[in-house]
């Protein structure tokens, strides 16, 4: 596609529920990043993939967070047993090479009630 596509755009989850957030990067983009943006804050790094390899997951806040990119294209960020502090916008970004000028998706706004 023309841009990075994320779904769903909005997700309301009850505390304790598991959620899965999807990212479709731009076709051919090797690098894929996930960021978390809390209200009034800048995006914070969660994890990075180069093709299907997860090379950096240092930003994942707890073992309830898990990300995968099994075929090197679509990626899924899964959050188990959601907590209220997980409420945020989750942004996916991709780039064709190792460059910080990557393209962000519009994000998934997760609200945990």
């Amino acid at each position, binding site marked *: 596609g023309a841009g990075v596509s994320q779904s769903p755009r909005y997700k309301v989850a009850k505390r304790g529920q598991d959620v899965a957030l999807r990212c479709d990067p731009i076709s051919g983009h090797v690098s894929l990043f996930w960021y978390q943006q809390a209200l009034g804050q*800048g995006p*914070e790094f969660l994890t990075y993939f180069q093709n299907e390899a997860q090379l*950096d997951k240092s930003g994942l806040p707890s073992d309830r967070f898990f990300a995968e990119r099994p075929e090197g294209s679509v990626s899924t960020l899964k959050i188990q047993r959601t907590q209220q502090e997980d409420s945020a916008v989750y942004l996916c970004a991709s780039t064709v090479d190792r460059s910080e000028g990557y393209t962000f998706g519009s994000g998934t706004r997760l609200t945990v009630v």
Partner: protein
Amino acid sequence: DQQVKQNSPSLSVQEGRISILNCDYTNSMFDYFLWYKKYPAEGPTFLISISSIKDKNEDGRFTVFLNKSAKHLSLHIVPSQPGDSAVYFCAASRRSGGSNYKLTFGKGTLLTVNP
């Protein structure tokens, strides 16, 4: 501890005047700096960047200045237009040492350009 700081949450300027957005950083290992622009309900959009080997980079109406000794950078928009109204994020990365190009962002500055 915030490594990238944007101390002004908001800035308001008149159309046609200069907008100056400021950013400070604390991590001396950062060697690449970027500005992103964000409209509501959209993801951030890359605007302009600068390497630490330079002190200025210009792209049309946008110029970024870097003062390494002060660990300070600024984004100048001249002339400002109403369509520039958005949240501007400063970001930094460390390219040396095999970095994966992850970014550390500031909290953002909301720029409002009044017609």
